[in-house]
């Protein structure tokens, strides 16, 4: 009955944004990654969400054995360094110290490195989501993860998932016009095939604290529907499994709960998320974020085709029929691609995106892990 009569609609309330910008420090020491990065930024108003990097900070990572690792300002709020894996032993604890340009010192608590087991298995199942609201119905596949750990491994996990897919422009470039018609032969396929990679923004966490075994099956990861070209020419996903401390897990799990609010009848107050960072110069100033120490293991899978799934996506390509000839093309649009036929160019103007896959955000450099 609830589903019968209830409704959810998109709603943007008027919210007075906070006038002060809080410091945000996030980052972690990851055993299993080459580069260790800490990011320092400022919060932005809800009405104008923007990433505001904080440049010019002095950042150090310290361990509980009196080793200090200075980080280098890489721009865009990122501070990085390489740490020799010999310093990164499970059981050791790390913290970060940030001195911001205003002079405030921000310090995190120590976070202890745990042991991570290898990623067990990743797979997908066909899943159709039926909803009484037509546009909410979906056809696609749901990815899952099985987790298996030893009892000596950490009980707290977070997964980062990166997806990469191959996609194609509508046409290769064969004819173009810039006052005269040019013919490229053989047609230029260099911007025909691209690959795009994205980090899945969802937070995936797991605690096996209350379970009798350090095992959990069918952990749902991302859902990919048939309305995107992601599954058309090959899809690869990389799972980074991070073993966390309990404190880090609590932080990420609360973040997950707050960012996946479901509304509904049994709605709860949003959680006031307390990270592990403090402004020791001004203790009343709240600092957001978390600095942790994690061990990572990785697994990648590749899917060339999903049997039985009919794809139904739109390629972004617009064409204009040139009734009065090529002269209709304004010089500002040169060079303008033209549609090809066996007998030469047609008086049809193709927008750039029809022949240049880079304009959709990807790269035309084939990733090293991509199968031939």
């Amino acid at each position, binding site marked *: *009955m*609830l*589903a*019968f*009569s*209830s*409704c*959810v*609609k*998109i*709603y*943007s*309330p008027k*919210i*007075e*944004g*906070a006038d002060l*910008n*809080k410091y*945000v420090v*996030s980052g972690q020491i990851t055993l299993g990654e080459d580069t260790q990065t800490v*990011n320092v*930024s400022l*919060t*932005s108003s*809800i009405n104008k*969400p923007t*990433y505001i990097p904080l440049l010019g900070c002095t950042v150090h990572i310290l361990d509980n054995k009196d080793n200090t690792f200075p980080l280098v300002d890489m721009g865009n709020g990122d501070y990085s360094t390489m740490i020799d894996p010999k310093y990164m032993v499970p059981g050791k604890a790390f913290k970060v110290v940030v001195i911001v340009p205003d002079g405030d010192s921000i310090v995190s608590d120590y976070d202890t490195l745990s042991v991570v087991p290898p990623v067990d298995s990743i797979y997908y199942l066909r899943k159709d989501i*039926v909803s*009484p609201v037509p546009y909410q119905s979906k056809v696609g596949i749901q990815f899952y993860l099985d987790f298996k750990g030893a009892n000596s491994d950490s009980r707290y996990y977070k997964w*980062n998932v990166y997806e990469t897919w191959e996609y194609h422009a509508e046409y290769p470039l064969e004819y173009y016009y810039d006052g005269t018609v040019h013919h490229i032969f053989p047609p230029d396929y260099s911007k025909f095939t691209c690959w795009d990679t994205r*980090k899945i*923004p*969802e*937070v995936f966490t797991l605690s096996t604290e*209350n*379970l*009798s*075994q350090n095992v*959990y*099956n*069918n952990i749902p990861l991302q859902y990919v529907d048939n309305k995107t070209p992601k599954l058309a020419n090959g899809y690869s996903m990389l799972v980074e499994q991070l073993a966390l401390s309990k404190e880090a897990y609590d932080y990420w799990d609360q973040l997950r*709960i*707050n*960012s*996946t*609010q479901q*509304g*509904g*009848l*049994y*709605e*709860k*107050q*949003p*959680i*006031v998320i*307390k990270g592990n960072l403090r402004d020791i110069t001004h203790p009343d100033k709240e600092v*957001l*974020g978390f600095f942790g120490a994690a061990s990572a293991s990785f697994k990648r899978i590749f899917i060339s085709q999903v049997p039985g799934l009919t794809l139904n996506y739109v390629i972004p390509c617009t064409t204009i029929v040139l009734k009065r000839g090529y002269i209709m093309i304004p010089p500002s649009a040169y060079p303008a691609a033209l549609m090809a036929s066996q007998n030469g160019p047609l008086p049809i103007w193709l927008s750039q995106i029809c022949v240049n896959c880079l304009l959709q955000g990807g790269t035309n450099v084939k990733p090293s892990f991509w199968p031939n």
Partner: protein
Amino acid sequence: MKKAFLFITLLLISVWMFAQSAEKLMNCHFNNVSFEKFCNEVFQETGVRVFYQEKWVKNLKINLNANNITAKKAVSIAIENTGLKVSEWNNNLVILPDTRLITSLPPYHPETANEGSIPENTQKMTATEERYLIGRKPDVIHTIKVGYEGGPLTNGKASILGRVMDEETGEPVNFATCYVEETKTGSISGKNGFFTLVLKPGNYTVTINYMGYQARKYMLDILSGGKFIVTLRKTVYQIQEFVVHGDRQMNVTQKDPGIDKISMRSIKQLPMMMGERDILKVSGTLPGIVSTGEGSSGLNVRGGGSDQNAFYINKVPIFNTSHLFGFFPAFNSDIIKDFSVYKGYIPAMYGGRLSSVFNIMTRQGNMKRFTAHGGVSPVAANLEIEGPIKKDVLSFIFSGRSTYSDWILRRVKDPTISSSSANFYDYTGELSYNAQKTQMSLFFYHSYDHFRLSTLDDYNYSNNGASLDISHNLTNSLRADFSLIASQYGFTTIDQEQLPSAYKQAYKMGHYEVRADFTKTISNYNTLNFGGDAVLRQLDRGNVIPYGTESLLIPVALGKEQGFSGSLYLSDTYNPSPVLSITAGLRYTLYSPLGPSTVYNYVPGMPVDSRYVSDSVTYGNNVPIHWYSEPDVRAAVKYQTDENGSVKLAFNQMHQNLFMLNNTIAISPNVQWKLADSHITPSKSNQISLGVYRTLPKSGMEASVEIYYKEESGYPEFKDGASFLDSPHVETEVLQGKEKGYGVEFLLKRSNKRLAGWLSYTYSRSFMMVNGGQTWNSINNGETYPSNYDIPNVVNLVMDYHLSRRVTFSTIMTYQTGKPITYPVSVYYIDGTPYLDYSKRNAYRIPDYFRTDVSMSIEGNLKRHKLVHSSFVLSVYNLTGRKNPYSVYFNTSDGGITGYSYSVIGVPIFTVTWNFKLGNYASE
């Protein structure tokens, strides 16, 4: 002969009032008494009146010793050999010289056998016509003789026990007022319809009145202490007396700012969700009471949490008051006789909840004849059967209700919903025994709900309750009421949303109570109430056990707990002058949680957390763990400023030992209750309220204004992300804080008119503060924040328009300020993903709530002779289809920031309900 008949006829006018049987047995021990005294005794013993002419029995002296004889037999022995004859007439006795009364007319066959109609409505008279008729009608007043010459008097005054009964059903009428014009004092009938008057011998004019009944006026000729019974007749027309609040007649002795009453008959026509009448939802249209929302049974009274209200049905506490997630009430409206809400001054006999008491009393079975009622709505059907087992002595009533709502679920396209099922049913039964001095009732209640969401979730919950109640009039001025009460609430949850952590939990709670309540009428100006109760509560929070073969969950035993509370109370109502009334009471409760229990101690100054346990203490079975002393002071003063107005001032103190473990705004169907223990202390409230009440006789309006201020301490709030399934140690999830509330409530009401109803407006605020001095034991950095129930402006309009006797239009309109909410105010990015940073708790509000419901009720024809009368109610809930947001939330999981609003009922819902009853339009 004619003369004698006339005389008798005049005498007999009042006879119909008496419902006693001439067949009733009595014991006679008379030695040389006058016939008059003999007849008085007969009346006292059996309620049977004897009618005669004084001159016939002038010299008659009665000598009679016999046991277990009928009144008729006793009289006939007494008048043996006098030439007089006794006849039975309407359950009374008539003495005539040498003649027996013809008690039935010869059969009469009307020429036209058409069914007659019930006479047309006098309501249609104009006011002028009415005045004209009333002005010319002789005001017939019947005289009731009480006691006898030389009968018992105390300090020259007679204690008189009166009783008010329903003329048609033989049911006692509670809360009827008896107003004595000469002394300007009065009394209100209690349970079983009894009331006491203390008056000097003499003649008095009394008016008996109760909403929904025709007021009646009598002359009382008081000779000595004695008893009398009066009956009231229900108003034939369904006159819309919704709420008696500051009612002038009620005001005579009611000193309770903030007692509200709703007549069940009046809400039958109101538009209701899915046609199920819900008295609790209707109570949410009264000032100071706010319904938490669609799909929640919660009520917030004067800014308090929904677990601060006590719900009693015939003294049985009910812990889950709704069916189907709060869409339907767990009580069948058709058996409710009286419904009262106490929110300002709470009588000393009640305790244990901070905000209010909702007291429901059910109807007794009809003592005169069998009858049945029923109703059918799209989701549920109900049926009530009642009748006498022994006429006028023992009756029964049984009601049952069940749903068949699955057909609606099947129609939903979402496969999760269409493969779900929802069931509920409830039934009640009561046996009532009625004797002269003793009344007994045995009541039971059962409700059950089962909800299955596809293969994901499965809940069921049930309430069971029973009460045995014995009332006895120890003397005319001292009444006692003894009760045994048991109530159980339990649920089972199966959660399979995540197979590896799927679980099952069964929860049970029992409430066992013994209580005694006494009412002593010292004088018409002074009434004493006293009594006590002892309550044992046993909670079994159950085990969270893995469910299914794939679950790897480690079982958690949430543990059992029990607690004992014993209370004594004393309250005195004193009227030093006809315009001033003072009530002062004290209720004293001793409460302790009892073992077996293992109590953890925590390192002082550290978070109450499993990491900081210093040691533990184990208590044996039934060993008190920590005694809490809880004195409650209650006081109220009422001053009648003039004949149309009064002012009332009240102070009210309450304690609460039982809490709901609920960190959502709505009450979930598997909500656990928890007793106060050695860590979680009982909470406490103080409230002061002032009310001004006026009637505006010309317009037929009543108006009231009440203001209040209240403070609560020790009220539990739950930590962010609190889970009540992980650990038996609830103290690690709870923080106790202070709540402060104030408000002003306006009510304007119009009754007994073609267009009637009420308009209420409330301005109120409610704030919480949880500040333990550290970040881990504070909420919102220890700063004050609006509570979840802080709804400043509430306007409700309830209207009935009686188009004709058979057609009534009704509407309910509700406006509320939006609920407080915590909104995100800033955004930050980690790894390119936006996350939200939230404002101070409850710093914003969701959009305002506005809803209009309408209904039309159509009564069946008004033919007098018919087997079944039926009526239809057509109603539309949320007529405008306004999508009132229940919550506003934000989702960033897809990498953007999207706000959503969620409405529980975003469409108009149309319902037709069919109700039936045996008999004609006017029968009850």
